[in-house]
């Protein structure tokens, strides 16, 4: 049971959605955009999120887009993760998102919800960071395209009243070799200790991480180190580990020093697989 009341709105267009947000904000209702809603429901139950109104974006046509337009893959923010996995237009995304929560929950969890929620793993961001995708964001100033690096790399940077409409990815990325591995504290259930996704483009390896830090990230310097093919693998990994941003997670899933240990092994596995191809 959610122990407080909020209003529920279901707008049908982007413009209406943005307008609604500001009207409700003006009324002091601290509105939140609601997509799959799983996180809002679970946090609201414990008063970890407080809102007077939720705005359900699942009925906005643009947010449900799924397909290729010219040379771009267009994915709406309100698509459920399982819908994306079953349609499978971007196999790396399917693989990475299939590690989120569980199958039934992913029938409800949406791409936008995973990317814009408070739970900081946001594993669905990794493929888009690797593919240098564009985020379509709606706000008071209209609809904008921004690089995912500006919005999702190292933390969530959406302005007040802005919401994610779509992600645009060059078609060529869906065919590139990839690896995505999720390591957990134990076996096959739970949040990641580390999720690493990797893509190879033009003989260069790209790598993005979740679970190491309280945000997903991709680091140019770290990739630079990993791609020095003339350097022995172990040395490259040593150098890459020094490039990690702070702070490293140190929590009940695992200590930071153990995460580093896991990372080294993971990187070795990823590099062996990607360079071996």
């Amino acid at each position, binding site marked *: 049971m959610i122990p407080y009341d909020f209003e529920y709105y279901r707008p049908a267009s982007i413009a209406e959605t943005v307008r609604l947000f500001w009207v409700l904000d003006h009324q002091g209702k601290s509105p939140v955009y609601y997509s799959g809603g799983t996180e809002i429901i679970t946090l609201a139950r414990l008063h970890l999120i407080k809102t007077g109104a939720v705005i359900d974006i699942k009925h906005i046509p643009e947010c449900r887009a799924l397909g290729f337009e010219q040379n771009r893959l267009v994915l709406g923010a309100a698509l459920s993760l399982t819908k994306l996995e079953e349609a499978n237009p971007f196999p790396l995304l399917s693989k990475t998102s299939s590690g989120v929560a569980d199958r039934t929950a992913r029938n409800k969890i949406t791409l936008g919800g995973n990317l814009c929620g408070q739970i900081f793993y946001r594993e669905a961001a990794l493929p888009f960071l690797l593919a240098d995708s564009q985020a379509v964001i709606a706000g008071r100033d209209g609809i904008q395209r921004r690089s995912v690096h500006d919005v999702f790399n190292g933390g969530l940077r959406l302005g007040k009243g802005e919401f994610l409409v779509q992600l645009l990815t060059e078609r060529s990325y869906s065919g590139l070799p990839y690896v995505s591995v999720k390591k957990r*504290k134990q076996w096959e259930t739970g949040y990641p200790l580390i999720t690493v996704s990797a893509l190879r483009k033009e003989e260069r390896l790209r790598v993005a991480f979740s679970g190491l830090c309280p945000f997903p990230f991709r680091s140019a310097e770290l990739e630079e180190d990993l791609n020095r093919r003339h350097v022995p693998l172990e040395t490259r990994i040593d150098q890459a580990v020094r490039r990690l941003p702070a702070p490293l997670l140190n929590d009940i899933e695992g200590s930071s020093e153990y995460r580093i240990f896991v990372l080294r092994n993971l990187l070795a596995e990823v590099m062996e697989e990607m360079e071996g191809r």
Partner: protein
Amino acid sequence: MQTIGKSVYRKEAPDKVTGAAKYAADFQKPGMLYAKLVISPYAHARIKDIDISEARNMPGVRAVLTGQQAPLVGEEIRDRPPIAFGKVRYHGEPVAVVVADTPFQSQTAAERIRIAYEPLPVVNTPADAIRKDAPLVHENLEQYEKGVMTYSEPNTNIANRIKIRKGNPAKGFLESDVVVENRISFSPSDHAAMETRCCIAEIAADGVVTITTSSQAPFMVKKILSDAFGIEAGKIVVHTPLVGGAYGGKSSVQWEIICYLASKAAGGRPVKLYYTREEDMLTAPGHVGLDATVKLGCTKDGKLLAAEIVYLFDSGAYADKSPDLNRAGAVDCTGPYHIEHIRCDSLSVYTNHPYPAPFRGFAHSEVLFAFERTMDKLAARLRMDPLELRRKNAIVPGHTTPTRVLLNKSNIGNLPRCLERLRELMDWEEGTLIRLSDRKVRAKGISCIWKTSTINTNASSGVILLVNPDGSINLMSGVVEIGTGTKTVLAQIVAEKLQMDVSRIHVRMEVDTQTTPEHWKTVGSRGTFMAGRAALAAADDLIRQLKDMASRVLRCSPDDLEVGGERVFLRDDPKTSVSVKDIAYGYTYPDGNAIGGQIIGRGNYILRRMTYLDPETGAGVPGPEWTVGAQGVVVEYDRRDHTYQIIKAVSVIDIGKVLNAKAAEGQVIGAMSMGLSFAGRETFEIDRNGIVRNPQLRIYRPLRFGEHPEYIVDFVETPQLDAPYGARGVGEHGLLGMPAALANSLSLAAGTDLNRLPLIPEMIWRAKEGVSHDSV
């Protein structure tokens, strides 16, 4: 035999697959109010002030309750105010309760209660608890009322100490060629039954208290309410519908007391108290933690001579059943081995953790983890096959237990045969450590198990059988259907005895303490034994009455009659018979004369010749029989990253007699799964302030589908002569050896001693790398 041994479907199966099965939270009553707890965010703190004024004036609020000095409750030691008074002793302890018209209103009002706390130093491990300068969790331990065999040590945190003194350990160690010592520890964890605790309480105008609760112990609810609040026992009626998993956790009495108080404060109106998952994990009693040291001595060819053992059970904030847990751990402190010289101190110590309920196996998986890890360590020191070491020392008839019970062919099963079967099933000759690749090895670990049930020496059980006008039978027993299928097995026992179709035995699933005969508690794998004996007695009683009535109809001696197929017939001329349905409600002669009346069979059973334990030596008879078994686990372990998978889990248990094949196998597999989950992943993550950081199933993670191994279950049948058809208790035993067997397999695979639970890869990495555990 027609029915015994068959995989008869559960009587309540159709209800359970259609959503018709009702559990406590499914009941609604007109005018029902809803209670909401306010729980402590501190593990140990003085309550300086509670301001309920705002909450009291919220819409729909009918009552707000805070703690009182008296009465205190608790099963073995009365040390617990139902709602905290003066100070809080664990994270999650109830501090206030709001009763309101709707769940929404009670929760909203509960959030408006303002409580000022003054934090106190926290006792955070059993080892800390027994330090001389440890803060006291209970300052007034001396004044508390205590049960028999509870030996508290005032002005310390020791709630109970049980001593086992057998033989002369000093001499035993002196004669030993090899001595090893091992320490283990694990934190408290949780039962995580899928149904969280729930209670509905109501007090009628005539003072009758009606309780509906998710409990394994409705008769104990009745007793405790009667004792604590001076209510006539006859005026308390406790209902238990189906229970959604219990595993011991619902044999403690807690939520019922709070719910009763809430109803009382609201003028007796029906009040529902539903625990959220967070409350179920924090507030309700959980699974005990343990710190232990085991020292073993043996000859150079592996004959065990002496054991010296210290068990420190983490009793948490309150004793409740903990003094029984450490006693059970003492009684079977050595594992199922013949050892002449034993010294064991088994303690329950207070800490500022959530307090323990019984947990499936009742202290046995816990002490076996300690003991069986040491056995493997000893085998390694001796360079001896761990299975051979166990076989060599296996306890058999003629030996005595740590409390000096002389074993015979009935009161203990056949452990050597279980070990031999395990050897085959695990392909032991293939080797125990097999290299699969540069990184991976396959490793095997085993554990022996045993258990007796240290329930009260005077525990009893009753069964009533009512004959229906159509000749079918209604069976009533106080056993709660918690998922074990015991009531279906009781129907099989009665059907077998009466030689009738089991589908014609109708079982009342619900228990109510007003009309159902008492069964002490549905715990300790004792349902089938005790209620089964009562059912046999009731069936005998029924048969006697049927023969008596039939003898008048058939004009013969009752001695010439047999009962079967819902008829009573002449032994030498079965065609001369009368249908049970024609005499079920008496017999009516052709002229209208009638005799007799409804036939009611009744039977009971009380444990026999159990004794209290001697306070100085522990000598005494703690339980009726020992179920024994041998278990193993096969893992595949990655030497690079210390991850592993459990490939196979094997149990060979001497069950005495299989009564329902699929149900028995299901009980064993389910228990194995729970044991592996406990050993491999489950623990409360308790921080340095005693705060439990993972009271949700998202971060406290029971085993999931697909993480389960291949299960192999096999039974040996050595009948317990005084049990129904020879059957031994088996509901818990599949769990008992899993933690030790898993740890033994992984210790072998990793090449290092693993003595902490849960066995997560980070822990193995720390053990391998020598990194301390305290950095998080």
